[in-house]
Structure formats: structure tokens, C-alpha cells
């Protein structure tokens, strides 16, 4: 369960806000909920490692919006999403809650699976374009050869 939840929360977090909003608006899921935490815009500090494997250092910050909701049935949903869209954070938290209920199938099929496909297509496009720029260098001996 935790692995699944991690995976959908991660997907919602990095999804393009327009993609998520479009999918949500198309589905017209009627659901009532109350705020546990109103959407809040902030940042996290991204860390890297010196020389790939060494000690940590700070690279810079990334904007993040977070919020928490509670459905009428009592299920709680959280979101931490990239960017400053409060609407994206809200829908993500509601989806997180719904995915823990009987609504799993509906939300999974209409929101999560389409977002997974968008993510995969984007990644495949990058990999296929990068592959086309793969180069085979060969070296030539400089100067007199004999």
C-alpha cells in the first residue's frame, strides 16, 4: 500500500498542472471535503553530493505547494507538489484521499494511468531523441605514421 501511495503521490507532484487540471475537469468527480491545511506555497532546498558520491551540499531551492484535505468519510489526503499552483495541490490531495477509498479504480483509471502515460511518453521522447545523437568517435594517428 505504501509503495503504491508513494508512486501516485510522486506522479501527481511532478505532473504538469494543465494535464492534471484537464483530466480532473473532464472526469467531474463530485466530492465534498474540508481543509486540514489550506494550500501553502513554499520551497524545499535541493541537495546534491560532491563528486557524485561524497558529502551533501545545497544546490538551490525549488518551489513547492502543499495542502491536506479530509473527505466526509474521514479519509485524509496530502499533497506536496512542484510549482505554485494551489489548484494542482488541492486536486492532488483530493486524489490522494480518494485513491485510498472505494473510488480507487475510478481515480486510478481516469487520472493516474493517463498521467503515467504522459510521463512515459515525455521520457521516451527524450531518450529516443538522445539516442539519435549518439556518436562514435574514432581517433586518427597524428603526424608521420612511418
Amino acid at each position: 500500500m505504501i509503495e503504491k501511495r508513494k508512486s501516485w503521490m510522486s506522479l501527481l507532484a511532478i505532473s504538469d498542472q494543465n494535464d492534471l487540471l484537464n483530466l480532473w475537469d473532464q472526469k467531474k468527480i463530485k466530492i465534498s471535503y474540508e481543509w486540514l491545511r489550506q494550500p501553502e506555497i513554499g520551497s524545499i532546498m535541493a541537495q546534491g553530493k560532491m563528486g557524485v558520491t561524497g558529502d551533501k551540499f545545497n544546490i538551490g531551492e525549488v518551489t513547492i505547494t502543499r495542502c491536506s484535505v479530509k473527505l466526509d468519510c474521514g479519509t485524509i489526503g496530502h499533497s506536496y507538489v512542484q510549482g505554485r499552483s494551489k489548484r494542482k495541490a488541492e486536486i492532488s490531495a483530493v486524489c490522494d484521499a480518494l485513491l485510498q477509498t472505494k473510488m480507487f479504480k475510478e481515480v486510478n483509471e481516469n487520472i493516474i494511468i493517463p498521467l503515467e502515460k504522459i510521463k512515459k511518453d515525455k521520457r521516451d521522447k527524450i531518450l529516443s531523441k538522445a539516442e539519435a545523437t549518439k556518436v562514435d568517435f574514432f581517433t586518427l594517428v597524428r603526424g608521420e605514421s612511418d
Partner: protein
Amino acid sequence: MYVAVKGGEKAIDNAHSWMSEIRRGDPSVPNVSLNQITEQLTLGVDRVMSEGSLYDKDLAALAIKQSRGDLIEAIFLLRAYRTTLKRFSYSKPIDTANMLCLRRISATFKDIPGGQKLGPTFDYTHRLLDFKLLAENETPLSPTQQFENKKVPHVLSFLNQEDLMQKEKDNNLDPIDITREPISFPTSRAARLQALSRGDEGFLLGLAYSTQRGYARNHAFVGELRIGLVEIELNIPELGFDINVAEIILTECETVNQFQGSKIEPPQFTRGYGLVFGQTERKALAMALIDRALRWKELGEDYSGAPAQDEEFVISHCDNIQATGFLEHIKLPHYVDFQSELELIRKIRADAKRNVKRL
């Protein structure tokens, strides 16, 4: 002595109003949209995010538009905004071995597992103006090729296997955060890397170039340069587990430099390291060269007095917002300060005149 000046409000308002009008330019020309900036001036956006030290494309584009394309002004706007954000927490360290590479090259090894991929680069172009771009409706489409989706190992890890490359050990130390604590010298490599990653590209470029010309001997090879997407993991305290909260583009550069060895260590290659937000390879490469030059003390090398070896000099001057703030403030009214200078020089001259008469 600082003394406030009063007045000038009307002139200031009118100056800003004229600046806004000029920023818009000829009203018969369409207004530039933020989407156009994020999509078509990508590398400018990346530079503003890296030196503004905040990864947010929309805000960087807005800053570029607002600053009329003055990137340092745009970086200033983004830095100012950054200070208003609540800091939720620190990410887990990003593992760049999981990067989805757009570009990945090595100047030291020809054949590397995973292959050399040039990616969307200006390298090997002829730097001739392309008049075809004047015709506005071009939508070029580049070729694609079958690929295997495999993790791309770091090139220099192969040198590690023979112990030819100095290992970078993780001692599980928490780094200082220069946005929270002022830097004091001598400082740590973590603080230097953070400062360099948000430092001014031009300043870093000039200093890195100085090391190549002989100011601090550190002949560098580009072991690997990679640019691509990475996901950022964050621990969510409410849940007690980690999720990915963001996906960003990073440029990473590892240089290979010689190291003579010391009493306790045999000769080995050492690394300079650059890691920067966005597609920013000139900056990441310069950062790696400077990182290596600044490591002279740790590696027991000689201090040759080169600017790039002097961490106080490099780190105190690489921040373009600090630099421009101090530089540009001298344009603002300093009437009282100057008045005292004026009085002083008049007095000295009068004294000198009297002394001449006496002779």
C-alpha cells in the same frame, strides 16, 4: 556617513512609468508571453533559475520579462522573491546516476558504456547567423531512434575500480546552508559548492579560464558532462515516507585532474565538481575547474597566489547580486559624503597654498 535624502517622488514615479512604457515597446508589436519565454528562451530561463537559486520556470520567465531581458536584474527579482518563501525542508541528496540524460559526453574516454550522446548542443555548429530563423514559421522536427532504457553509470566510476581516481566519501555530514548562515573563512567545500552553483556565470568563466592559462596549475580533462532530468525526493513528515516532489533539469560536470600524491597517498587523479540547475554547461564546467583549484589545501598542493586558489576572493565576489548591489548603490545620492570630501580637499589645498607663500 549616511544621511537620508527626501523628495523626488514625482520624478521617480514618472521614471518608472516611462520605464514600463519602454518595456512594452511598440504597441503594434505583439506582447511577449511567458510561455514564449519559457519555451523559446530556455537557456536564459535556466541561467536565471540557477543564479536566482530558485527552480521555477514561470517565475524566471516573468523576471526576464519584467527586467527587459537584463538577466542580472531578473536574478535579483527571483532572489528577492525567494526570501519570501517558507522553507518546508531539505531534499534527500539527488542521485545523478539516475539522471535521464539529454546529453552525456566524455572528453577522456571514447567508448563509454551507455555511449556518448551529444543532445541538443551548440557544439559543432559553425556559429554563422542562421537567416532561415527570420522566416518565423519553422517547426523543425529532429530524428528519433530505438533506445534501451538503462541506468547510465558515471564514466569516472570506472577509474575508481582501479583506485586511480580519488574516492569521494560520504561522511554523512550536514552541509552549511549559506542562505541561513553567513560564510566565514576558511570555509567548507560544501559552502563553496553552494556559492559557486548560484554564482555569476561570467565571473566563474573568467576565473576558470585563468586556471587554464596558468594561474593555479590544474590542467583539467572533462571526465563527464551530463545534462538531464532528475527527480527530487523529500521526506514527508505527516506520512513518514519519501515521495518525489519535483522533477528538474541539472547539468553535472566532473573534471579529471592530476594529483602528484603525498607522503601518505600515491599519485591519483582527482576531481573537480560542478552541479547547476538547468541546462547550464558553461557554468557547470567553470564551477568544476574552480572547485578543483580551491581544493589545493586539502590536497596538500602549493598555493601559487592565483586568484582562483583564494577562496575568500572567489566566494566573496562570485555572487552577482551582492556585487551589483554594492556596485550600483554608488549611483544613489551620496551628497553628504561627497560634501565632506569637498570640504576636506578645499582645506588641504588652502593649507598647501599658505605653506607655499611662507616659503
